């Protein structure tokens, strides 16, 4: 058996190509087409090279274990059937790429187009060669997603957006159902491996879960293949560029549904449920699709409904459950892909050259584009099932199978009649396509003068049409062996004997074909006049718009019901929400503690520390006063809050947490300054003009007070009892033991942060960076409220004072403000920098570290702003906080990656003691480098936030003079 490594190439190659295509200049049409073409060609060649290994029932497999414990692996599996699809996907993909080069307008950003197209190719390829059910579902959803992007490619067009959304909603929902179905199958079989599943058909069919599995899998397959009653998304998807329609909506994506049905045909088919569900869906789609197709005025609409009908034909064949029918189904998949892709491309050419797809306007184009017309006519004849073309062969097989008695039921007896009627309809719309567009009088008022397209645009159509003819005339030689390979892969031992010949003699199917041909032409003759000017859509049925119903449902569910539910159970007001959360938390706490009374130690005042006690008496008073004053006395509340923070900090010192104390103290400074900067933008609130308090408000306050009290008591009790319970063995002991021995640091807290749990710290600093950037972004377009727009009252008063005094200039008082302290602050800068460096360097062994050092450094910058004002600082010192953040992130990630280079896991640290002259032995651990990254990031983030807020005052005042300036802070 062949080494399967090349299988991954089939998937990786298109995705890689997609990435490259996306990176190119948007308008590089030729480069994009060359790239995509080469990728498709390479994938085609690779896929083709598998043929010798899959013929005769061979299977090529490649497995990369992912989570073996859960049965998840990245298994790729190519058999004959998947091979046939791979050839269609890459082959038609190649033709579509060539075609699209000429179809897309120079104004279209083709980079996006080709990137999506290639990514879709990769997803589709993955879908057909996935060897694991979950992997299959993943690729299934990926095709839905890329199809969404491709349908919505012209996103300025409302129809494209609607069509894309509808396709995604339907196929995405179907995909979710499919996923559940596949998980159920995996549950029944005990493995997600496709081979194991295919080998346990009996177990699945006899399982009580069979019906749910079948329903869920069908929900996926029928939505994807646009089967009744989910067919309506496909005509709406015609808003996509025509190459997309030719590729996705004829040859590949919609085939995914029938591909899946065929894949699981050996496992799921043969039961009455299968026959009835699939059969009804298939026959209904076959008939309705063909009927609707007759009445379309849009060329692509006609083709879309025809596609639906042909997919219905395939589904019907699969429903019969007989091996011969399966052969016919597989054969028709290939045939339909060839003639329908060519027809879509032809329709695109007509649209491109004549400027319209409306069949009421198109007429007599044969004389303008004879070659294209001939090609389209041949393909159209194949679609209608005319002998000597490939469509005829598989349709005859279908007729023959429809005649067979499969399962005694009304549906089975009706099948031949439905088949013949649908066949007649197919002849009608095919004839209509040919006659209306290419014959009749010369067209009047077309948007542009039609002519033949460039040769290369026509070439893909020509190649596909040649394939139709060759297969139609000499089927056994041309497609026979390949079909046999595909069929054997699906049916295995059950592969029936069948003959691919054009002439079977005067059989019933042939007579049915003749009836269909004559009746179809007669029907067209009868309808000809009506169709020339009728509305879009079939009479009577055009009132039932699937799209309308779909949108009605969507609006009802996502808007009306959601609003109704919201009105009952939800609120948009913050306070009730917070209240609910708090109450829920309190209840959860009590629930957990309920009945654990015997665990609680007795409350004692023994060992009450008087100093700590009085410290917290101050802290508690500060906290409560802050709570009371936060409404009217903001500044006082801020100062009181800082008081509490200071007491917290002192407690940390007291209770053996020097690192926390240092960090808390520094953070306290920065927080206070930050909030001070923000105070200016808040509205004035005067206690004297406080609004009258009504009873409801008073009640609400009492209730909130009670909640706060209960919460406080609860958490205090919880903390108290937890603290008095002996400490269970902690992971901390491990860190204590190994901190010095293995990480070379004596400050265990710091070692935990930068070494043992370095990964956590890395994400912590990422959070910090994100917050800083968010703050920056939020303030970029900040507009203050009207009453805050002018300079603050104090400043105006100072300026007024200056203007009255003759010896002073305006602004001088402001400049002299805090003159002596500000000079001291300026001189403090180097001192603080040294302190920060000191904190950073000693962090590994003594209290300190990157966080504390970073904030200390930021405080240094901050003091300069306080001392000199933003302008003064920025004239002298260019701080680029975003760079600091970037450097910090890169340093810490690079440190982590560094250990990979030495063959250790990510973020493994290394240390040694390096002697430094005059200073002595310095601990140098790679963790220090990591800490340096933390330091740099913390500096950047803190400074970025502070400067962003501080700059608002500048911007507002600068605006009247220089409106252009001041966007970035």
């Amino acid at each position, binding site marked *: 058996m062949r080494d399967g490594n090349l299988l991954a190439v089939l998937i990786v190659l298109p995705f890689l190509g997609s990435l490259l295509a996306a990176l190119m200049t948007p308008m590089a049409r030729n480069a994009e087409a060359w790239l995509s073409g080469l990728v498709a060609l390479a994938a085609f060649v690779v896929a083709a090279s598998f043929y010798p290994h899959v013929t005769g029932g061979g299977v090529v497999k490649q497995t990369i274990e992912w989570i073996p414990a859960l049965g998840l692996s990245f298994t790729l599996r190519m058999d004959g059937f998947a091979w046939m699809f791979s050839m269609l996907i890459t082959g038609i993909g190649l033709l579509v790429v060539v075609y699209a080069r000429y179809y897309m307008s120079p104004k279209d950003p083709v980079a996006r187009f080709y990137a999506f197209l290639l990514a879709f190719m990769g997803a589709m390829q993955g879908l057909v060669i996935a060897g694991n059910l979950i992997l299959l579902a993943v690729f299934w959803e990926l095709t839905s997603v890329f199809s969404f992007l491709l349908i919505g490619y012209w996103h300025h067009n409302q129809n494209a957006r609607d069509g894309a959304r509808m396709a995604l909603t339907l196929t995405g929902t179907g995909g979710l159902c499919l996923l559940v179905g596949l998980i159920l199958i995996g549950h029944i079989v005990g493995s997600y491996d496709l081979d194991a599943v295919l080998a346990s058909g009996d177990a699945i069919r006899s399982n009580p879960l069979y019906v749910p599995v079948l329903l869920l899998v069908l929900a996926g397959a029928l939505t994807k293949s646009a089967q009744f009653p989910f067919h309506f998304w496909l005509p709406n998807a015609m808003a996509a560029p025509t190459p997309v329609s030719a590729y996705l909506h004829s040859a590949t994506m919609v085939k995914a549904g029938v591909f899946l049905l065929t894949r699981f045909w050996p496992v799921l088919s043969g039961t009455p449920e299968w026959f009835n569900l699939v059969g009804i869906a298939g026959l209904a789609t076959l008939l309705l699709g063909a009927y609707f197709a007759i009445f379309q005025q849009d060329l692509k609409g006609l083709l879309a409904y025809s596609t639906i009908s042909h997919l219905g034909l395939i589904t019907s064949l699969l429903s019969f459950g007989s091996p011969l029918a399966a052969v016919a189904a597989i054969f028709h998949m290939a045939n339909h892909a060839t003639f329908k892709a060519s027809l879509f491309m032809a329709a695109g050419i007509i649209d491109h050259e004549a400027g319209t797809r409306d069949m009421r306007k198109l007429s007599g184009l044969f004389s303008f584009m004879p070659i294209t017309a001939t090609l389209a006519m041949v393909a159209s004849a194949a679609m209608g099932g005319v002998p000597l073309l490939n469509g005829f062969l598989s349709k005859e097989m279908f007729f023959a199978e429809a005649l067979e008695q499969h399962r005694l039921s009304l549906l089975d007896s009706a099948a031949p009649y439905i088949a013949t009627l649908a066949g007649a309809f197919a002849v009608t719309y095919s004839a209509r396509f040919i006659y209306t567009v290419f014959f009749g009088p010369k067209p009047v008022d077309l948007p542009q003068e039609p002519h033949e397209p460039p040769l290369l645009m026509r070439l893909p159509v020509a190649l596909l049409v040649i394939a139709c003819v060759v297969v139609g005339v000499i089927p056994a030689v041309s497609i026979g062996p390949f079909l046999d390979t595909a069929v054997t892969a699906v049916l295995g031992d059950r592969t029936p004997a069948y003959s691919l010949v054009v002439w079977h003699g005067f059989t019933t199917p042939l007579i049915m074909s003749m009836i269909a041909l004559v009746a179809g032409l007669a029907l067209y003759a009868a309808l000809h006049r009506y169709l020339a000017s009728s509305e879009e859509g079939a009479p009577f049925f055009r009132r039932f718009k699937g799209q309308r119903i779909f949108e009605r449902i969507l609006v009802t569910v996502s808007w009306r019901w959601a609003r109704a539910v919201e009105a009952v159970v939800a609120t948009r007001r913050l306070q009730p929400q917070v209240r609910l959360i708090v109450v829920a938390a309190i209840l959860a706490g009590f629930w957990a503690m309920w009945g654990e009374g015997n665990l609680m130690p007795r409350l004692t005042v023994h060992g009450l520390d008087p100093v700590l006690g009085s410290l917290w008496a101050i802290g*508690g008073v500060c906290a409560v006063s802050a*709570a009371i004053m936060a409404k009217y006395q903001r500044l006082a509340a801020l100062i009181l809050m800082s008081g509490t923070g200071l007491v917290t900090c002192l407690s940390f010192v007291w209770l053996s947490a020097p690192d926390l104390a240092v960090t808390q103290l520094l953070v306290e400074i920065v927080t206070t300054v930050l909030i001070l900067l923000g105070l200016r933008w808040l509205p004035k609130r005067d206690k004297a003009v406080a609004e009258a308090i009504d009873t409801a408000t008073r009640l609400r306050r009492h209730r909130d007070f009670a909640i706060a009290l209960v919460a406080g008591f609860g958490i205090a009790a919880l903390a108290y009892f937890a603290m008095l319970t002996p400490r269970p063995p902690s992971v901390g002991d491990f860190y204590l033991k190994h901190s010095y021995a293995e990480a070379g640091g004596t400050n*265990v807290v710091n070692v935990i942060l930068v070494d043992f749990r370095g990964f956590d*710290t890395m994400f912590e600093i990422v959070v910090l960076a994100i917050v800083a950037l968010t703050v920056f972004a939020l303030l970029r377009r900040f507009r203050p409220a009207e009453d805050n727009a002018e300079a603050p009252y104090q400043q105006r008063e100072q300026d007024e004072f200056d203007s009255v005094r003759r010896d002073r200039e305006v602004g001088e008082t402001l400049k002299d403000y805090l003159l002596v302290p500000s000079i001291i602050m300026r001189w403090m800068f180097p001192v603080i920098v040294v302190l920060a460096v000191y904190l950073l360097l000693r962090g590994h062994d003594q209290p300190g570290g990157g966080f504390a050092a970073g904030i200390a450094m930021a405080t240094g910058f901050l003091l300069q702003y306080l001392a000199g004002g933003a302008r003064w600082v920025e004239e002298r010192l260019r701080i680029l906080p975003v760079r600091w953040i970037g450097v910090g992130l890169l340093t810490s990630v690079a440190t982590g990656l560094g250990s990979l280079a030495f063959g250790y896991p990510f973020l493994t640290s290394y240390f040694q003691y390096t002697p430094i002259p005059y200073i002595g032995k310095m601990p140098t651990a790679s963790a220090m480098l990591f800490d340096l990254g933390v330091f740099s990031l913390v500096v950047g983030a803190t400074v970025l936030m502070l400067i962003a807020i501080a700059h608002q005052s500048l911007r507002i005042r600068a605006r009247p003079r220089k409106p252009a300036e001041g966007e970035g802070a």
Partner: protein
Amino acid sequence: MELVIAAAIGVLSASGVWLILRPRTYQLVIGLALLSYAVNLFIFSMGRLRVNAPPVLDGSAPVDVTAYIDPVPQALVLTAIVISFATTALFLVVLIVSRGMTGTDHVDGREG
């Protein structure tokens, strides 16, 4: 010692909870800051309270783990301090921007 810290956590939480139930954004910011003190103290206290036992080793093996306070809660709180600073900053800016956009400092963006 435990009683004091537990009472402190209780008072801080009660003040914080009261404030986050208030309608003005500034009250919310102060309330969240007070709550974060309480939560930090709470997490810290889960390592049990010890005096004169900082987790700073003297560099001579072997280590007697009973001589030191549990370092893990401290490491957790250290990052929590920095992160709560970040969230306070974020809330403050959201407050300012919302005030600029809606003209009010009510938490719902409109009075009433």
